[in-house]
């Protein structure tokens, strides 16, 4: 991981978003989003329902093209890069979609094995071993030959995480990781996220509005405001809660608790 080590000592942020405008046709969802994410951050993108958090994530992984602005990974301009360059960047990225998005025609082991088949020279037996390990990491040991429809929603989500981790990505994106999970599973997922950051040095970007997770795992964040359609606050979530001036953000971070401080 020398490449990572060099980048970590440098001053270039891991991910940089510059003047990003997201729009559907003439409808502008968010404008002038500028923020940076450093190596080893657990970066939270928060905001109310419909504020465009998930859409921002889709922009960052290239599923939607920005109306304006650019996204950089290390020093590479992701938005302007060609197909093969993008592929190379995407290989170092893992994504856990909101519903898990496991491929329903494949078993869990095949789901995790597919990226490995594509980008490594491992033999089928080795791929299966790696898949078993990844499933064991998310607490699904022994479920290799289950189809996604045969397991519960929470298990699907964890299996989705196992697939996102298949290639040991440098960056992991999570879209609403705790949605639909019971409190204990959600907490275990939070601990897993922190563990991945600490042991593998993975940079984590989380889209969520789950306050418990935000304060437990986040060390940096941005808040998307749906009225002014841009970022109204950024910084460590705990500090934002303590010092936020904006009443809407404070109300968000305290479940509407302190309208009158």
């Amino acid at each position: 991981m020398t490449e990572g080590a060099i980048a970590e000592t440098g001053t270039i942020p891991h991910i940089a978003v510059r003047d990003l405008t997201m729009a559907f046709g003439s409808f502008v969802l968010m404008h002038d989003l500028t923020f940076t994410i450093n190596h080893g951050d657990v970066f939270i993108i928060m905001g109310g329902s419909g504020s465009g958090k998930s859409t921002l994530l889709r922009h960052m992984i290239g599923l939607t093209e920005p109306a304006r602005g650019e996204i950089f990974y290390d020093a590479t301009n992701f938005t302007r890069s060609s197909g093969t360059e993008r592929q190379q960047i995407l290989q170092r990225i893992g994504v856990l979609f909101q519903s898990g998005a496991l491929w329903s025609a494949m078993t869990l082991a095949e789901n995790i094995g597919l990226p490995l088949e594509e980008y490594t020279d491992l033999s089928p037996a080795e791929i299966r071993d790696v898949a078993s390990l990844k499933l064991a990491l998310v607490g699904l040991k022994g479920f290799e030959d289950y189809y996604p429809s045969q397991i519960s929603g929470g298990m699907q989500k964890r299996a989705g995480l196992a697939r996102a981790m298949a290639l040991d990505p440098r960056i992991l994106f999570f879209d609403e990781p705790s949605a639909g999970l019971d409190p204990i599973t959600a907490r275990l997922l939070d601990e897993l996220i922190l563990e991945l950051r600490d042991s593998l040095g993975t940079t984590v970007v989380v889209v969520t509005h789950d306050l418990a997770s935000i304060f437990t795992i986040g060390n940096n964040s941005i808040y998307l405001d749906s009225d002014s359609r841009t970022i109204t606050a950024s910084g460590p979530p705990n500090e934002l809660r303590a010092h936020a001036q904006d009443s809407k953000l404070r109300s968000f971070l305290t479940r509407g608790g302190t309208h009158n401080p």
Partner: protein
Amino acid sequence: MKATVTNQVSFERVGGVLLVSLAGRWQLRRGLASSKVLEKELQGLPRITRVAFDTERLNNWDSSILTFLATVSDVARQRGVPVDPAGLPPGIHRLLDLAEAVPERAGARQEARQVPLLERIGTGTFALAGSAGELLSFVGDMAITLVRLFRMKARYRASDLFLLIQQCGPQALPIVTLISFLVGVILAFVGAVQLKQFGAQIYVANLVGVAMLREMGAMMTAILMAGRTGAAFAAQIGTMKVTQEIDAFTTVGLSPLEFLVLPRTVALILMMPLLCLYADLVGIAGGAAIGVGMLDLSWKTYFQQTVDAVSLTDLAGGVFKSCVYGVLIALAGCLRGLQSGTSSSAVGDAATSAVVTGIVAIIVACGVFAVVFYVLGI
């Protein structure tokens, strides 16, 4: 002093105060009380300065009374008459407060706008141009993908391909058998009625044989497969869009075209000619059943007559057409699936649209083939 009674509501004027008396059982399934009388009362003279309530004789209530009261306070507010909720039970009072706690968001209501004809034609044209562009780029991408397939660079799972071949080949046999047998029977009947007039029943074999081989075998199989398999492709791919599985392919760097569309297209290209051959055979058997059963021909004569009537060119032409139809069905199904929106009704629309597109494409292709084959003298 006058009193108007509707249902379980009565209005009473006490000086400038309109006293609304609510009584009896208020339940949704017994219907709602009308607020028309109230409007009339508020318009009448002398002017009302306040609306108050009397609920002494109210037994039991649900949302029906809340709906009525919400209307009352809306109507009163429009006329600038204050409503005094003091006479209402506390439960009703609190629920009404809750309903009015958040003011209506300006611009949230969607207004049905009458779109002028010219604007509709314009938007329609742009939409058409857009979808033509999408179609072209899809066909182009598929061509590139097919080239990659021939250069052995395409990435897809062989197990998927075999499963798809099974789904659109062997599993379609029962329905293809039924339909093509009946088509053979129908053709034989149509021919028999006409040819009997000349005592030329034997030519039923020619009619059925040539028609099945040249046109009907391929076309009936294609229309069946458009309804059966094209719709299934659109629904599968559309659902994968809803569950973000397509996005997951893209982020892993796998092309949905290679991974999903290619095996489906290949499976249909491989299976359609076989199904077409099978349909030809079963159709001729259907014709023979009528020839032997009703026209007093022997199996041997019918068989011999068919062999003399049809040529290898007829057969090859039909089989070739079926390959083309296979490509059209697969592309229509997959394209509509990939274009699907992300709701359950959008997946339904995609499936419907796949069948319509598939059948239109088949019929258009059939017409083109008819002209080309005629010009070439086939």
